[in-house]
């Protein structure tokens, strides 16, 4: 007798299993909590001040909105690389409609949302009906959008005069910044639609098994298109708020959101559920990304520390739940 199978589950290992199960579900949340506690202990006065916490939410707001929209596309089993340019595009368009065409604020906002819907439809048609791989299709629309941005703005930022528009992102209602309110509203709607409506159920089915969804009578094409439109609308909301916040429309304003939104959504997929994208998870992912940035900035960390820590936090957050699941289950073939 040479090689022995030692059963991994020893007698007293039951509490171990329970701990693993806990880590598997809540690993990502634990990392978030650990980060908050860590920064809170290191810099209690600055980090845990009410002002800074509201600040963190305010900084998270735009990312959360766009990552929420992206989550829809990911739930539908697709991919979107165009939302960063939609952010820039709708910002430029909105500011341009205000400043160049002199339209009133609601009309300008409405106009840029409509334009974003058109882009979302284009993405959806290319992917769902012409069956072009989502990465190519959205990369292409994204490039075309960049061209349109340049065409409309000539590459230069369009600056806003002081006016009502910049108050939108800078104002507050009952002490809560308007972007935070917008984030709460958008996430609530996204959650409700995804979990409590036909569209949401069909989205999940489509993402889970497209062939089966189609054979169950789900209008897979329309559902996919809807996901792209939702993502585009969220990106446009983010773009409008961003241009209001920075006071101008810029060709590359949205670029910084591309990777962070993906990081947030994929982080979120390891929150509680295993590998499925969902709105609450994405929000947790956004918080992790934002709090890491905020806390390190408060600590005044060097750039290289910033990057090293961000990378490791990203890994830790996912690895804790993933490896617990693996040790626990080893279910997936």
């Amino acid at each position, binding site marked *: 007798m040479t090689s022995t199978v030692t059963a991994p589950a020893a007698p007293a290992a039951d509490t171990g299993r329970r701990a693993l199960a806990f880590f598997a579900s809540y690993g990502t949340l634990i990392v978030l909590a650990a980060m908050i506690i860590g920064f809170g202990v290191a810099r209690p006065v600055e980090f845990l001040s009410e002002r800074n916490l509201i600040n963190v939410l305010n900084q998270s707001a735009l990312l959360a909105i766009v990552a929420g929209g992206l989550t829809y596309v990911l739930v539908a089993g697709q991919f979107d690389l165009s939302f960063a340019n939609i952010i820039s595009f709708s910002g430029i368009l909105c500011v341009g409609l205000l400043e160049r065409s002199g339209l009133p604020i609601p009309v300008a906002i409405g106009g840029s949302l409509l334009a974003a819907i058109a882009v979302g439809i284009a993405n959806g048609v290319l992917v769902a009906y012409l069956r072009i791989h989502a990465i190519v299709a959205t990369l292409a629309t994204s490039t075309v959008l960049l061209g349109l941005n340049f065409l409309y703005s000539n590459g230069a930022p369009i600056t806003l005069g002081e006016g009502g528009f910049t108050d939108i992102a800078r104002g507050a209602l009952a002490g809560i910044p308007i972007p935070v309110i917008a984030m709460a509203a958008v996430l609530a709607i996204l959650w409700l639609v995804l979990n409590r409506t036909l569209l949401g159920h069909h989205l999940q089915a489509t993402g889970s098994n497209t062939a089966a969804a189609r*054979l169950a009578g789900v209008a897979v094409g329309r559902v996919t298109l809807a996901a792209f439109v939702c993502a585009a609308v969220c990106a446009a909301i983010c773009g409008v708020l961003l241009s209001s916040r920075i006071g101008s429309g810029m060709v590359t304003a949205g670029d910084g959101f591309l990777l962070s939104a993906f990081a947030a959504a994929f982080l979120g997929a390891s929150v509680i559920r295993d590998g499925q994208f969902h709105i609450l998870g994405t929000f947790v992912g956004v918080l992790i990304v934002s709090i890491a940035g905020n806390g390190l900035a408060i600590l005044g960390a060097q750039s290289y520390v910033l990057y090293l820590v961000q990378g490791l936090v990203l890994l830790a957050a996912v690895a804790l739940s993933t490896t617990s699941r693996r040790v626990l289950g080893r279910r997936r073939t």
Partner: protein
Amino acid sequence: MSATELVSGGPRRPVSASAFVEVQALTKTYGAIRALKGVDITFRRGEVHGLVGANGAGKSTLVRSLAGLEQPDSGSIRIDGVETHVPNPSAATRLGLAFIHQELNLVETFTASQNIMLGSHEGAALAFRRVDGVHPAARTAAERLGIDFRLDRPVARLTVHQKWLVSIARALVHDCQLIAMDEPTASLDANESARLLKVARDLASHDVAVLFISHRLDEVLELCDRVTAFRDGGVSATLQRPELTRQRLVEAIVGHESAPSRPARRDSGEDRPVVLEVSDVRRGRALTGATLQLREGELLGIAGLVGSGRTELARAIFGADRIDSGAMRLFGRPYAPTSVADAIRHGVALVSEERRAEGLFLDLSVTSNLYVNTWHKRRTRCTPFTSARRAERQAAEIAQELGVVLRQGGVRQPIAGLSGGNQQKVLLGRWLQTEPAVLLLDEPTRGVDIGAREEIYRRIRSLTRTGMSVIVISSEFEELLECDRVVVMSAGSTVGELTGASITVNDMLRLCYL
């Protein structure tokens, strides 16, 4: 008389006594589900060892543990007396174990030959070699199964059933000492099943240990030297050849004797109105003229050899495929479904034969799988929103009614955690929720245990009594004996029809080969 008995039946070998694999006190839990609770079982060289048991009894889990796909929680596996750890499938192959798994797992972009040979190439990973063309070993394995299609085309272009043959052939290329077959005949027709049983016996006579899982008791009775029955993750009985009777098997599986009831067939129902009329429907080479009528409340069977176009016909009726020519009428009105959704609106439903690829949302909950196309009925009144709690409560009721064994996790657990048979029941439930007038069932009992099988037919019967018309496609002709009428298809067209007392397995087979 069973279909298999028609074409097989050879001399019995004496049982050799050399134990090859000994499984001792094996346990495996999935969360709170105890799939295996202390199983002891021995597989001997030269013996065909049957495993039977209800859905979810743990048969596949045992096989998967041997294959290195699952790591058991405790217990041991001894190979030739040596306690052995099987960390992954390639280790299992090296130990001389070969497997036909319950689910189809092929690389769609590879050719049949490449799929058969996948994993059995030896040598350095970076040494140059060609992997295209047909490998001689693959051809040999294919010939053994009587495969008559080309092995050098991507399997994506094969039919489901051809894919099954490929998957079986893969297990035969290995020079193995134990071969485990998890419901290998579920997707084969009578002829091919018989051939496979012959291969199994052949292997045993060459001193290979054969592990054979099936819900078709006739096959088990005919083939196996010894049968172990599973119940709830444990062994409920082990029967040797002399004591092996159908009755005792049934007893061991379900825990009590159940008489296979054959409900009285109804009259042909000539007087009832015709619900669905299919006239000379054609599509490519798969459908070359299908004609049939379905009456209200009728249970119509479609018999045929695999590849005879039954699935294609069902898909055409269901609007999943466009037809080239021909016409259909539903309730007397012209019926030309433009899409699946359109067919569902017209009251047509299809439970597909390919459960995993075309039916299940594996990572979604049982509830979501059940309601995917009936969420609109779960809305809270006057709002566009579905009610989660009510939906789950009702889903639990429906699951219970269908006899789905949920155990822990209830209707919230991902459906991936259910055994194959239970998944099938959920799919049936899904389509019943759409309240169809015409229900098409393509191989509804594939991989379903005999208890559940009876339950499914009982349910179908009671559905027809409410006026629903049902079409059943099955490769197990005995099942079709339950039908009011049977249409036989061959090479894409309907070639005959059997009614009432004239429905016999023999007649069906005769028409198939006409």
